[in-house]
């Protein structure tokens, strides 16, 4: 899911209705619906929430409470390349922090931010990818790169980047 979502509001509303209809009969569908919305647009556009509330009968505050509780949901689009650096225990011991720092430095991602100013890269920490024997690892655009060091991570990120090296 890349960040270049330029969908017209009318189209968005139509998609939203389809998604709600798809999950219509499911009990407790709020989370699956929001997951489908994020899957569709790459993030959860805030402007859809009133309509979603009207369609499902779930209050806007309940929708926000779910969106802010679960770490999977985001209100902003991702960068073109999505990197998740594993910070599980094995990766932590093997130097995950250095890898995240090196990537952020390389792509100019400010402290507290996750996406580079040119929107080419989003770098996030994740709890555990479950590839502990290849630690430290990172996921990039659905590919997993393992046995990294800070230099190798930066090189790997550039080589696997969509639209060529930055």
């Amino acid at each position, binding site marked *: 899911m890349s960040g270049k979502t330029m969908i017209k509001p009318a189209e968005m509303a139509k998609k939203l209705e389809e998604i709600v209809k798809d999950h219509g009969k499911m009990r407790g569908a709020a989370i699956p619906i929001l997951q489908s919305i994020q899957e569709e647009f790459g993030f959860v556009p805030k402007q859809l929430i009133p309509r979603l509330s009207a369609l499902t009968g779930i209050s806007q505050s309940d929708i926000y409470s779910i969106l802010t509780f679960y770490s999977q949901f985001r209100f902003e689009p991702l960068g073109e390349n999505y990197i998740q650096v594993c910070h599980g225990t094995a990766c932590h011991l093997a130097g995950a922090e*250095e890898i995240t720092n090196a990537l952020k430095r390389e792509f100019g991602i400010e402290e507290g931010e996750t996406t580079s100013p040119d929107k080419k890269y989003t770098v996030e920490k994740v709890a555990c990818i479950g590839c502990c024997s290849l630690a430290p690892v990172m996921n990039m655009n659905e590919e997993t790169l393992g046995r990294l060091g800070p230099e190798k991570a930066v090189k790997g990120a550039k080589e696997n980047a969509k639209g060529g090296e930055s």
Partner: protein
Amino acid sequence: MSKIEIKVGSASCGIAAGANKMHEYLEEKLKGDSIDISKTGCIGMCFNEPLVEIKDDKGLYLYGGIDSEDKAQRLIDEHVEQNKPVEDFLVYSDVVETEDKDYIDKQERILLRNSGNIDPESIESYEKVGGYDGLKNVLEKMSADDVIGEVKEAGLRGRGGAGFPTHMKWNFTKIEDNYPKYVVCNADEGDPGAFMDRSVLEGDPHSLLEGMIIAGYAIGANEGYIYIRAEYPLAVKRLNIAIDDARKKGYLGKDIMGSGFDFDIYIREGAGAFVCGEETALLASIEGKRGSPIFKPPFPAQKGLWKQPTCINNVETLANVPRIFTDGAEAYSKLGTENSKGTKVFALAGKVKRGGLIEVPMGVTIKDIVYDIGGGIASGKEFKAVQIGGPSGGCIPASLQDTPVDYDSLTSLGAIMGSGGLLVTDEDTCMVDVAKFFLDFTAEESCGKCTFCRIGTHQMLEILDRITEGEGKEEDLDELEKLGGQISAGSLCGLGQTVPNPVLTTLKYFRNEYEAHVNEKRCPAKKCKELILYFIDEEKCTGCTRCKKVCPSDAIEGDKKEAHVIDTEKCIKCGLCISSCKFDAIEALSGEKELQKMNKGGER
């Protein structure tokens, strides 16, 4: 040419190491040779990934580190074409001795016997090894009470952490006279460092389904939910395939195998909240709410999903169930100890030579796992401790390595079996840092409902931050213990109650390390950034300028072919120079600041 079978280990870890490319290559090159090439789940020897297994009429040959087309081609040229095993890449075989033989031979693969053996995307492959036979036995011959009795006799205890007897949980749900009832599988494997459940889901998904159907039959439920981490896309994919196939074959749905019993299974993907591994939080999440735990009782067995009786078990527990009904309770309970029956799967990782997915009978010692199976410490340094049970678990020091791994022994040491992460540390690991790591994680993941958990964890974290920055005070250690006790006592759910465990166990067994940070402002493992300095050994430095080039803060000075020097004021301790140095000339020092300052680096 003899009949040959080739299997490529294609779980997430294998794929990450390049298994898919190797599989494609082998298929391409061996097209038309009528050789059976399949993708399997995790073969277990993750440290040797990617793995290719070749089975011929002489035996089984497991090749490791097959990460290039050249290597794959050699397997074809020599083993497949000329029937000559390629000894260079051989990591395990049942006919030839190998160095890593113990890794496999010291294990007992009951739960994992299919993982790495069958094609997880083929129901026929599962049936061929006795899949759904357990269910057949249950539906043909047994009453619900018989099933629960058999589980009791097998001595199965919950593999999710605390080890609650499975038959009791099932019985509590069964005796409720309120329908509908539900079976819920907790596949929200959120512990950093644990991936056993993922491997079962990716390598042998039908065994979970079969276990759930049997559980449903025993408690009188017609619906099951699998709550799975969204971070496991391959597991979700393979489960979906398995559920579809099981429906088509009549193992799921209406009137299963003509028995009159209806049961179906649905998947719910988690949305990234560690606390949802707690059963009441998990149920809230399935109901579409924030995952906040609620007070028990009533237990889920009485009022669970949508206030109906619900039996929640984790993946490993449920996937063990079919084994009990194919082999019988007696065979199952032969393995293990008096109070901990069967085997336990661990994700062995950290500083061991051989890490991966291992399955051992309960009661083996920590030492057996670290040395016989793990092959000892990779760096050749001292074995320091194992961290067992994830963020809720604890650290067990090397001095207690003869401890048997069973529920009760671990609990008595302040650790728990937990979900099965087993992390080995060596002398390069700072135990204060490890404790901080887990606390950082749990403080972030606290749902915020209980004050002690929400605020107490942050207070503990502040103290640990202070200690690792060299600002710790002596009374901090007592304060940590006090806070830890209060958080445990004042929290509603298992997350909050166990949050302090990593801190408390490291304080108990590695107090001297905390004291070195506090009193001597020194990190013995040389990990805590505020307490270390980087230093270039003039003797070893060749002046290759490599470190100087990679240094992001321009802290390294020195001409070509001259020994370099680090300006400790500018140095941000990012570690790039250490990882780039080919001559081992850069090291971290701690507690030797004065000595360091006498060098050129810090005299400013």
